[in-house]
């Protein structure tokens, strides 16, 4: 197990290194300097600015100082808004985005598993059809469409929830709903199909024959094995939710990291793009690493395989 974790950890560092390098060279492949603007700046000012952002240095020196800034976690000031550093933007936006992401994942996982299990237990009955119809629709509607419809109906027409910002639990309902529906549908479908498969296994019949209560069989015996595929796609779902926060934050005017990321793209503010991209990627890659380890702990086959390898 230790060897497995170590290998995964090294892999994670390599991936982060690659995405950081890729980001750097992509940003520098853009013709012209990010400092060029409509304003007429005289040459001394321009030179000073270039020195300030280290743009006058040769590329490999810039690359090294960029790598240094990543290791020391100091991305320097924004270009469009020089009074703010990228770190400040991250510190302000990340907790909000994190909150949105975590609540979304919890809602999606819990309700998805419940829906999928209920559908499997009532296979080919009304609940099954209703749950699966809901799931297919949930997968088909893009989250930004759902978000706009929710605002239009629940916030503007019926006035049930506030339409924007992120200040109270009531404000969180619509963005979380918009963001969680897709992943929830995917989890529900996956749980249903693997639950159906597990329920036909011999050990479930055995448990029934022993007279264990149906509820206990589902919770203790079936669900545990049925959830393995769900853990497998958690990485993909996390990535989807993370990128989903960009548009959801834009639509609901939530002052999270996604807002700065989208703004920085539209403003071509390179330090902010680089800082947020590297941060987002590192965070996501770290999450994938955690998912891998959880999977390794849950799946006995991986452990078994490693033991064989060790001997």
């Amino acid at each position, binding site marked *: 197990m230790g060897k497995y974790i170590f290998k995964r950890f090294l*892999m*994670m560092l*390599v*991936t982060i290194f*690659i*995405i950081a390098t*890729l*980001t750097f060279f*992509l*940003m520098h*492949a*853009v013709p012209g300097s990010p400092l060029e603007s409509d304003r007429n700046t005289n040459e001394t000012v321009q030179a000073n600015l270039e020195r300030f952002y280290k743009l006058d240095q040769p590329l490999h020196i810039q690359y090294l100082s960029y790598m240094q800034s990543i290791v020391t976690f100091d991305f320097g000031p924004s270009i469009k808004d020089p009074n703010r550093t990228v770190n400040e933007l991250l510190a302000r936006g990340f907790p909000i985005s994190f909150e949105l992401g975590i609540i979304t994942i919890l809602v999606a996982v819990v309700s998805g598993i419940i829906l999928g299990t209920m559908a499997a237990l009532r296979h080919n009955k009304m609940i099954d059809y209703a749950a699966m119809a809901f799931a*297919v*629709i949930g*997968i*088909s*509607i*893009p989250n*930004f*469409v759902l978000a*706009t*419809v929710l*605002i*239009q109906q629940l916030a*503007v027409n019926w006035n049930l929830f506030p339409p924007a910002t992120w200040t109270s639990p009531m404000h969180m309902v619509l963005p979380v709903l918009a963001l969680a529906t897709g992943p929830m549908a995917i989890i529900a479908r996956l749980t249903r199909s693997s639950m159906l498969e597990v329920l036909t296994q011999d050990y479930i019949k055995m448990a029934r024959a022993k007279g264990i209560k149906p509820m206990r069989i589902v919770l203790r015996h079936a669900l545990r094995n049925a959830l393995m595929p769900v853990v497998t796609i958690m990485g993909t779902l996390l*990535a989807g939710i*993370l*990128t989903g926060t*960009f*548009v959801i934050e*834009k*639509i609901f005017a939530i002052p999270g990291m996604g807002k700065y990321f*989208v703004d920085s*793209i*539209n403003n*071509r503010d390179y330090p902010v*793009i680089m800082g947020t*991209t590297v941060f*987002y*990627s590192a965070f*996501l*890659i770290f999450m*994938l690493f955690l998912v891998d380890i959880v999977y390794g702990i849950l799946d006995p086959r991986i452990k078994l395989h490693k033991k064989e390898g060790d001997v």
Partner: protein
Amino acid sequence: MTQVRDEWFRPSDNSADEKEAVVRPSLSYWKDAWRRLKQNKLAMLGLIFLALLAVMAIFGPIFSPHSVTTQDLPNQNQPPSATHWFGTDEAGRDVFTRTWYGARISLFVGLMAALIDFVIGIVYGGIAGYKGGKTDGIMMRIIEILYGLPYLLVVILLLVVMGPSLWTIILALTITGWVGMARIVRGQVLQVKNYEFVTASKSFGAKTPRIIRKNLIPNSMGPIIVQMTLTVPSAIFAEAFLSFLGLGIQAPFASWGVMANDALPVIITGDWWRLFFPALFISLTMFAFNVLGDGLQDALDPKMRK
């Protein structure tokens, strides 16, 4: 002593071969899959919808009396009517015409992305799976790293650098998108290459490209086709998502994502048709591809055969 007769030396009757011919139409893998797909009503519904959509995408803009790009400012933001079936947008352009034009772009992006993923995935996954050993190890290591990269973030970065246009969007979507396909192809090839008929083919002296083309690919097509069917809606979604971030197809042309994004400011004022039609078609198309993919998954899986 028997007499040697002339008729003994006549050419043999070839009709014996015909007798051995299969009288009943043979139910090949593909025919069987098609038969089972036809029984799946939801999947067929998806297929019919997509066929209609393709027809409308090709001919819709031609038959419409309105142009896609011509502005008609006096008639801006008109609700649906007899002349403008889906209403007009903020520049007075006909939403009906633009929806079919958007279908062209969205479908083109989705299909191109699936096709390019398919080609790269087949070549890369085929080689990795077939060669095995060290080659496979190295190629899979590369895939593992690429797989760890956040897909949409890379796409966004590439679009910031290259500038948004139809082809840069397709390029950005495929540059990391082929990885999933390559993994599936490799898994399939690993499984199929140990079957006896491949060994037989090898013992007859078939070379690697021939074995890959004639034995491996046809026999691992099922999951590959399913993956392609599911790539299309995810590419369409990604394109719409990028349009939402301002990285979509540039005006005056529009994909569904761009149309939905442009409709955001007016949705609060009650101009519902601006968002409704592009959003409806994004959702219906993704729905159709998803149910078709599900149906194909069941139809192409020999284990599901009754």
